[in-house]
Structures are given as C-alpha cells and as structure tokens.
C-alpha cells in the first residue's frame, strides 16, 4: 500500500484543484490517477489536454505534460499532439458543454478518424464554470438560469453519437464509483483508437436534479448484465436506454468496443514513425521538390 501511495504521487502536480467540495470531478481525478498508476504510464510521455470548464481544470492537477486549451477545442488540440508524436499517451478531459455543445463537431470527426486518444467527458448536465446554464445533456424539464421554465430540447445521447460516428471504444462511468471508472479508463488508454469515456460527474453546486443520490438507484453495470460490447445493435440499444426508460434505468460500463486500424496506423506519413522524430529534408530532397517545377 505504501508503494502504491508514492507511485500515485508521481502523477500529482501539487496544484490544488478549483473544484467545490463534493464535486464529481474529484472522483474522476482519482480514477485517472489510478489508471495511470496501474498502467505505469511514463509521466513524461503522457499529455493531458482539456478545454475550458470546471472539469477542464484537470491537466494542472497532474504533473504530466498537458494543454489547458480553449472551450470546445480539446479534441483538435489533442489530435494535433497525437499526430505530431504518436508515441505519446494522450488523454482528453473536459465537460459536457465543452464536448457535446460547442465542440460537438470535433467529436464526430475525431471519432471517425479513430485517432488513438482517450477522451473523458465529465458530464454534469450543466455548465458549471459559468454558474449553471443548461447543457446539451440536460434532461427535458431541467431548470437552470438559462432555462428557468425548464429545458424543452431533447438531450444529446453522446454514446449513440460516438458509436455512430465511428468511435471504437465507448464507455460510461460514474464518479461515485472510481474503481469501476478507473477500469474503464484503463481499457480506454490501452485501446488502440478513439475511446470515449462519458462520466456522470455531479455538479453539487448547480445541478440539484442529477445528484449522486439521484443516480445511484438508477444506475446498473453492463458487465453484470450480459451485454456484448462487440454487438453494435446492442450497443446502440443500451446507449439510448436512459432516455428510452425516462431515466429509470441508466447503464454504465463498456457499451461498445471494436478493432479498426487507428489513423496513425493508416496514414502514409505517420506509418514511418512519429512526425516529431522524422528527419529534416536534405538539400538534395529540397532540390528535387523544386526540380518538379522546371
């Protein structure tokens, strides 16, 4: 146990998170730490990339490399990191507003590219950092400062969206169960391709509907229910079970997993190794490029 404690500290930066006491994001921090520790990820080879939001404060809490980027732009930034050096372990950490609102276009395209990234979304069904407005995952009727009469839009189903866009590892966890969540994150890091881990991570300050207590009786684990994650049809069915059951039954666990070559494995340039390690062109090579235009 002592050994484990010191190993965990390897990943901590010592920066105190900005989160409110009780915020779900602490659980996600613990789960990521456990996953990195268990997998013995080299600290200098890990890059944690976030967007903007309470949840996006994640990278600073780690002593790995990281980028705290723009609201909604986590995935293109993380893609740029991975495409420049695919020897790195790249993990995205952001919020539901960040990933399913302003940045949702990038989710679809990053998924279909199957870039080898792990993308963890702390889904609190609200905009925490901007003091509680409605979010793309807010359940209909949910009242916030921006929807005082209740949300009247259908929430997005991030899992169904990711599966249909071509993500090759799609999971959902709960920050109230960090051991289970850590296993899902480990699977995502080890998976070669684009992995989405959506996490119910309650905002104790601004979302008084979707609380730990609200989730607990509704949640059940897919790995205890005969779900076959290689079955696309079943995965879709499970992905929309929450809204289909009017949030009476909310599955968590691994919804879908399939093997498809990652972008880095298929790209003609990246096949030759990480870009950052490729040699500068020689004078002869430059001349040859110019000579094409004679």
């Amino acid at each position: 146990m002592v050994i484990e404690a010191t190993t965990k500290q390897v990943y901590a930066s010592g920066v105190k998170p900005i989160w409110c006491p009780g915020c779900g994001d602490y659980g996600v921090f613990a789960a990521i730490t456990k996953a990195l520790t268990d997998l013995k990820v080299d600290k200098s080879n890990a890059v944690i990339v976030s967007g903007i939001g309470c949840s996006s404060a994640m990278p600073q809490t780690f002593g790995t490399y990281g980028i705290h980027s723009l609201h909604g732009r986590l995935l293109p930034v993380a893609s740029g990191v991975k495409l420049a050096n695919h020897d790195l372990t790249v993990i995205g950490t952001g919020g539901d507003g960040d990933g399913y609102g302003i940045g949702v276009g990038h989710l679809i395209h990053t998924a279909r590219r199957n870039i080898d990234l792990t993308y963890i979304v702390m889904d609190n069904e609200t905009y925490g950092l901007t003091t509680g407005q409605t979010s793309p995952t807010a359940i209909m009727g949910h009242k916030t400062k921006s929807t005082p009469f209740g949300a009247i839009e259908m929430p997005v189903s991030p899992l169904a969206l990711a599966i249909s866009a071509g993500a090759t590892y799609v999971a959902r966890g709960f920050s109230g169960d960090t051991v289970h969540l850590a296993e899902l994150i480990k699977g995502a890091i080890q998976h070669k391709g684009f992995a989405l881990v959506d996490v119910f991570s309650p905002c104790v300050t601004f979302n008084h509907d979707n609380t730990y207590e609200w989730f607990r009786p509704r949640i059940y684990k897919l790995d205890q229910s005969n779900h076959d994650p290689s079955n696309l049809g079943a995965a879709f069915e499970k992905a929309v079970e929450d809204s289909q059951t009017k949030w009476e039954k909310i599955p968590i666990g691994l919804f879908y997993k399939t093997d498809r070559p990652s972008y880095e494995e298929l790209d003609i340039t990246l096949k030759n190794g990480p870009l950052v390690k490729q040699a500068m062109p020689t004078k002869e090579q430059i001349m040859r490029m110019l000579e094409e235009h004679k």
Partner: protein
Amino acid sequence: MQANFMTSVTVRIAGANGDGVESSGALLMKLAAKNGMQAFGYRGYQSIIRGGHVWFQVRIGDSDERLRSHGNSIDVLIALNQDGIANQASHLSENAAVVYDPDKVKVDSLDSSKYRLVPVQMLEIAVRVSGDPIMRNTVAIGSAMKIIGIDFKIFESVITAMFSRKGNKIVENNIKAAKEGFDSVKFEKMHSIKSDGRQRYMLDGNTALAIGAYASGCNFYSAYPMTPASSILHWFAAHADRGVFFKQTEDEIAAINMAVGAANTGVRAMCGTSGGGFSLMVEGLGFAGMLEVPLVVVESQRTGPSTGLPTKTEQGDLLFVMHASQGEFPRIVVSPRSVEEAFYIGSEAFNLAERYQCPVIILMDLYISEHVETVDGFDIDAISIDRGKVATSNPESGKFKRYLYTEDGISPRSHPGTPGTEFVAPSDEHDEYGDLVSDALSGIDRYVEVRRKMMRKRMTKIDTMLKNEKIFVPSIYKEDSDFFLVTFGSTTEPAMEAAELLSGKGFKTGVISFSYLMPLDKDKVRKMLEGRKLIDVEVNYTAQLAQVIMMNTGIEIEKRVLEYDGEAVTGEGIAEKALPLLKEFSR
C-alpha cells in the same frame, strides 16, 4: 500606356470552364519557359466548374528581364468561343492578333484594320487529325507559337515529355494538330522575344511557399479547403509519401487548434486558409499567442467581405490579421512580394516563430497564391534552421519553469516526451510554471504582479525581435528617384513595373515596399518615408497600409491609388492612375 522598356507579349486564351483554357495556358507557359524565355501566367475564373467565362493570360518576355505582372492589354487573343470575342475585345492592344475558329466564332464586331484576324479551323483540324475535339486547344497553341516566335521543335520535346506515358499515338496527334495550327498562320512572327536557352523554374506563390516550408522542416499542415489557399493543401497532400503530413480538418477552428497542438509537441506546424476561414481561426490565434507556441498561419486573401468574390484578389485583410484576437500578444505579419520571396518567407517564418515563440502570419492573396511565373533560381544554401531556445532537461530542481521570466522575454520551451520538463500549457493567464493565476488567484496582490510580469515578459519579445532582426523595415527600389510608390505584398512587383513606366514619362519614380508589416521598426520606417513624395498603392478601399504607416510613424500618405474591383493590378494600370497624382506634386 504601352510598355516600351522591354519586349513582352501578352496572350489571353478565353473560353468556357471545361474548355481546357487553363491547361492550354499552362502549356503555353511551359513552351515559353522551355524556350528560355520568361513567363508569367494568371487566370481569371469563377466559382463554377463548367460554363461561365474564363481566361488564362500568359505574358512572355525577354530572358534577361523579370516580368512583374501578367500584363495589361492583350497582344494575342485566342477566342475559344463567341464570348471570348465579346468579353475581351476591349482589352486588345493595337495590332493585336486574334486567333479564332471561323466555323464557330464571328468576328464582324472587330475592326479588321485595327487587328490582325487569324482564322484557324481549330475544331475541323482537331477532329480530322485526332478525332478528339478537345485537341482544338493544341491547334490554337500551335498558332500562338508561330505568332510569338517559339521554335516548333520545343513543342515536340515538351509534348513528348508530357504524354509519352500515354503512348506514342497521343504524342503524334498532338504534334500533328499543333503543326497544322502553326502552319495556319500565314505571316511571320509578330514578336521577337529574347531567349537564352536556360531552364527556369515555373511555379505559383502557394507552391513556392509550401516548398519553402518543407525546406525548413515543416512536416505538419492542417487546413480546410478554401480558395485561394487550397493549392497549399494540395501540395502537402500530394507529397505525403515524401515525409510531410497533411490533415484536412472539419473546419478552420480544428485546423488551427490541431496545428497549435502539433507545434507545442515539437514539429514545425502550419495551417492555412483565406479570410473567411481565418475569421474562424481567430480564437486559436490568440491561444497560440498565450501558449507562446511557434505557429505559422497562412492567410491568402480574396475579395471580401463575407464570401465576397471567391476567385478574385484583394489586400483587404491586412488590418484584420494584425489585430485579430482579443487581448495583446506578439505576432509577426509578413506578406511576400513575389513568388520567389514566398519560398524564402515560407521557410524563414518557422525560424522566426520558433525564435520568438509566437504566431507568424503569412499574408498572401489570390494574385500571388495563384499566378505562375518563371524564377531564375533558388538559393537553398540561404536556408538555415534555427529552432530557438529548447530545453532538453530541467536546469533547476523542482518543477520546470516553461514560462521563465527572462530579459529578452523568451523562455526555453520543452516538448512532451522529454523527462523532467513537464508542464501544462495554459490558455489562461499563468505563472512561470504554467499554473493558472486566473480562477482562484486573480486579484490577490501577489498574482496581480504575476499577471503584470507575465504580460511584460510576452510583450518584451517584440522589443527583442526588433533589436535582433533587420527585417522589419521596407525595401527601397530606385533610391535616387523623385517620387515613390509605397506598397506591400503582391502589389510590389506591379508597382515596380509602374515605376518604370512613370520614369519613362519623365517622372523619376521608385518603390518603397513592405513584406514584413508587423512589428515595424518605426524610426527606420519614418526616416525612409520622411520628406519624400509618396503615393500609396494598395488593392483595398481604405488604404490599410497607409493606416499602418500613419499609426507607426504619424506620416500620412494622402495620395493614393486604390483598387478594389477584384482584378489583379498591372504596372500599366497603376501607372495610369498614378500619373495625374504625380503631376499634382509638380504643381
């Protein structure tokens, strides 16, 4: 106004989209270049794939004189359809030769005493010789060669090289078709262009820029297609098998953010677009500024605002790229003045970006991006690589200070994968470690000071670059002149041509031109402009360069030649408008 200081002939091929106008123009340029002449080509086109009215203008000139624009009036018109006559007649120079197919095109509207009408049965010859109607362009090119005075043997060698892979028959048919076109011209050549038998490079500004970037080790390009920047992405995509990586993204927001992620990881990364896409990139640009990431962004302007004239040129985004983004941070803005310079700037931009860890914006426009010209040579020994301050280990114990306060404002950067120099690059304001001073700490005295110091650290880089680099001043052409045209970027070369023409009219005129526009060495710029008789020449409505000069030096250039019709300026066009302004000075 006729250009009489050099010999050149301007050929315009006009027809509909899908007629092969562009490939014919490119072939003609190739023939001239192979013949040891200078060539300059520009196409006028629209955003439709078939139909419409398109033209390709090729100017061919003496081997010993650089061509500085695509030429004003047409000396040889090849009209592939009736529109070719109707739309181009007003551009014909005196005595112009008009090549047309008498079976298809009527020329009654043209005064046959003023022009040399050259009927060539292009279609009939093409079908008879090859069975392929598209070969009529080849017939027309044959006729043009005779008029210009290009040796027919050149055609044989060029066509053989181009089509030998497709088989002998194709080559033979082309030669037969061109020869009949050549022989259809019943008079001797109308022009005597000097040739020196030398093989020149022939390329457009985007290609030159892309190869320059490649030469400096840029192997990452991300972009979303947008005219006139698209040919850069085409170049990168086409050379993926030679070590460059290209990613077509879902939008320009992704393009710039990917490039930022890549640049922060240690590759030389570039993204590119036109003004509309650049609008989407603006937040990412400030992000790069805050992260102090070496990023190169290409913005190739077209006629705005909004979607504007997508296939036409303008220099209307200068102030936009200089000021785009909230807040303040160092950036370098540079606008290449020629195809040749686009190559060197495409390469040097990365040294500057890495030396000063800031975005470098290369401001192109449709004219320089897309026009093709011959270049005598490239000096690749002039290309050097300077990656700036890179930390390969942590010099101190404890956490690495990625944003270390330094006197010159530049802190050593480190790349993921390097042990000991871990840091988080933040878009929020931060301390030397990169830790945020925004959310929980802003407003506390100690952190108010951190903000002040960090801001000063970043901004100090502007002083450092002004001190260390000699580039932030304009160049002067014909220094002993009485008058100067002041301009930037792609308008420079046409302005030089205009200066020659004006000097020929008795007004000794030079050119003061800017490639680097931000930052500027104010004192040097002021000294260069002060007390001189100046005319500002730009392709925009509001004289943006003049505004930049005013802002930096207090000097107001009141006389202006401003064009904003979307068409590329020429020396003759500028000279015509500048002449009355020059006369005002003398009064």
